[in-house]
């Protein structure tokens, strides 16, 4: 009888695997996504399908060109998450080509140019979003108020096809700025935040998602639910979300107290823009965030800080994507700097001193 001894133990394994992890993340995103597709209607559904298809196609081609096994790579579900998050980060009525350009950059440039799954430095979905945001600012900031499917004023199927695939409709008249964009514009006109806030839907409506924004910027309770589900399944831990949202909240509250005319409140920062989606689903991306808990805390704090700075002082009303990418660049350094203390050693790596030793 011949026995193969090809590796050392352990000869048992946990039930976790990569595709299970990836599909759990997708499951966690599903409720919020379905609600958003309902809120924004057919154009959002078309855009979602286009983004997913473009990402899948890009992944297939990238792996073909790279000589890998396309069945296996598509099977692990990682590209589905990229496409899904990318779709959620686009304005729901954006034209199809915006989604395709974003997908191509996300998958080819951000992921496969770096060596594919696990090798990329930057979050692919955020690279895709930022590329189209800086290239097509008009399309990327044309938000529409929520018009739920089959409700009065919602575009029909044919009209929606035209919105997504046609030469684009003029959104003048129906388009609206996101809340972050609105207060920023008002501020630049000299209207203090305290006044411009009065024109926004109240915070509870904003939380539910009845406001203009990217798909994933709405329906916070459902995103929170998805995040908690991921924590319960031990896919993510509290470190990144709490650090990021906590930093954002504390900064918002402190500066709002100091100067309410210039700064929006902590709560406003939490529930507007992509704070929640970013904290639970984007910043927690395994590949592009630090591996140790201490590193993850620093990473989360950094994203919160940068998001607040960009929202408050920079030209863009929303800063989560930029903040994530900037912190992605720091991840290797955070990984080097924040290692757990090794058993029996000091933080510096020297053996612990024995009692009596100097």
């Amino acid at each position, binding site marked *: *009888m011949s*026995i193969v*001894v090809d*590796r*050392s*133990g*352990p*000869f*048992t*394994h*946990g*039930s*976790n*695997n*990569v595709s*299970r*992890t990836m599909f759990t993340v997708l499951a966690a995103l599903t409720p919020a996504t379905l609600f958003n597709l309902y809120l924004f209607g057919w154009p959002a559904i078309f855009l979602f399908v286009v983004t997913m298809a473009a990402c899948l196609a890009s992944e297939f081609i990238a792996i073909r060109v790279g000589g890998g096994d396309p069945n*296996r790579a598509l099977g*692990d579900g*990682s590209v589905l998450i990229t496409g899904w998050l990318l779709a959620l980060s686009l304005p729901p009525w954006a034209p199809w080509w915006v989604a395709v350009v974003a997908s191509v950059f996300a998958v080819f440039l951000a992921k496969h140019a770096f060596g*594919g*799954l*696990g*090798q990329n430095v930057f979050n692919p979905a955020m690279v895709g979003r930022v590329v189209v945001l800086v290239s097509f600012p008009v399309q990327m900031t044309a938000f529409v108020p929520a018009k739920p499917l089959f409700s009065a004023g919602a575009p029909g199927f044919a009209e929606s096809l035209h919105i997504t695939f046609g030469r684009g409709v003029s959104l003048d008249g129906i388009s609206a700025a996101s809340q972050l964009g609105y207060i920023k514009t008002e501020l630049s006109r000299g209207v203090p935040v305290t006044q411009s806030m009065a024109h926004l839907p109240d915070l509870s409506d904003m939380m539910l998602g009845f406001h203009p924004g990217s798909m994933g910027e709405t329906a916070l309770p459902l995103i929170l639910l998805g995040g908690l589900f991921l924590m319960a399944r031990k896919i993510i*831990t509290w470190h990144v979300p709490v650090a990021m949202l906590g930093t954002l909240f504390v900064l918002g509250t402190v500066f709002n107290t100091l100067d309410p005319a210039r700064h929006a409140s902590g709560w406003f920062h939490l529930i507007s823009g992509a704070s929640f989606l970013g904290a639970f689903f984007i910043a927690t991306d*395994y*590949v*592009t*965030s*630090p*591996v*140790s*808990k201490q590193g*993850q805390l620093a990473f989360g704090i950094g994203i919160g800080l940068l998001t607040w700075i960009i929202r408050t002082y920079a030209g863009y009303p929303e800063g989560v994507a930029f903040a994530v990418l900037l912190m992605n660049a720091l991840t290797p350094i955070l*990984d080097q700097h924040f*290692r*757990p*203390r*090794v*058993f*029996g*050693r000091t933080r510096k*790596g020297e*053996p*612990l*001193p*024995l*009692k009596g030793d100097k």
Partner: protein
Amino acid sequence: MKLFPIMGGIHPEYRKELTSEKAIVALPLPEALYLPLQQHMGAPAGTTVEPGDLVKKGQLLARASGAISAAVHAPTSGRIEAITEITAPHPSGLPTLTIILVPDGKDEWAELPDAIADPFAVTPQVIRDRVAQSGIVGMGGATFPSAVKLGLGTSHKLEILLLNGAECEPYLTCDDRIMREHADAVVDGARIMAHALGAPKVIIAVETNKPQAIEALGKAAAAFDNVSVAPVPVQYPMGAERHLTQAITGRETPARKLTADVGVVVHNVATARAVHDAVRQGRPLLSRVVTVSGGAVAEPKNVEVLLGTKVTELLKFCGGAQGAKRFVSGGPMMGQPLPSLDVPVVKGTSGILGLTLAETKEAEPSPCIRCGSCVTYCPCGLVPVEMASFIRHEKLEEAAKIGVQDCVSCGSCSYICPSHIPLVHYFNYAKGRIAALDRERRKMEQTKALVEAHNARLERQAQAKREAAAKAKAAKEAAEAAAQAQSSTQGGASA
């Protein structure tokens, strides 16, 4: 008892129920016994018998050679058939020198050393000598010669003998059964060992998934003030020496030091039983309890097996293991893959597992997604993902700098890795390579030192020669000068 948390660790599927209620049964006498001279850490034992010799049960077959070594005895009476090389029960499958004993079926005892009537009245040295004479090694699987470890009391001030009954490896129940069925022997052996170590206190640590063992030991220990039983949480690798020490005492053993440096020595419960047998009955180590288990094994059992019994015989006794994907010696987490079933049970064989594919859950590794689980679960505070990537690029020094040599190979990282990356395999490779490179470097340094010493000596000799020559020349010149001066004064005088 107050316990202290240990970091990381996992909760694998334990599957102890396969054998935990199976009382220890003895294996019928096999047709031949294969006794490797190396069943322990250290130097192989040196044979004291020749082929053709008739030996009795308990007779010495090979004696310890060197400071770290262990004796081998005849598990039954019979004839020495040969002393030859057979496949070692080691993943390498390399040949190892082995005594082959064919039993005569009489099972006749040799004359054994006298029982030590009151082990607490004799000096620790007497106990250590008896343990050494009996060929006892760490039975938990590490197989370090016990007598050497019992000598730690001479160099360290010890407070606690920590008896390890954690048995945190899945499947294995041999220690559980020994604690339940031989609690008195275990406690007595532990007290004797504590005496040999000069440790005033004995704590027996058992994971809470073995309530019957805890109860049995509690009863056996009730009569002794200095012996207590500590139930510890079920958390792999609780049974790792340093982690168990930390869980019980809160003391963290510094890197590159021994637990003895923090006043604790850890021994396995089966070792305590063997010490009891050796001291109280003069019986050397002849057999051990082996858990035969796994999904592929028809009738999983706990078997008292004579050392040297072939694994094939043991499996046959347990109804065979059809459809096993892997055969493992020891537990599934830290056990060694068996290179063949045609190898003997040795002193460190705590289990023989026949595992199905459904149990090993083996899969092709996929790319690392940097999920960080390995960092979260590493009980040593290491960063396996980073070490593995260094090792993959043969950057062994970098890997050493971030602690690969502090890895205890517990396998928690490999177990938890969603990408099925064989992390421990990388670390074992690195540890081996680093040790080899170290040896090479030391050898080079030694050679260099020798060459330098040689050159220095030659230089010294040359220098001495030159100095002698210079001296001789100076003397000669001085003599000549003196002669000349003399002649000139003479000349002057004559002028």
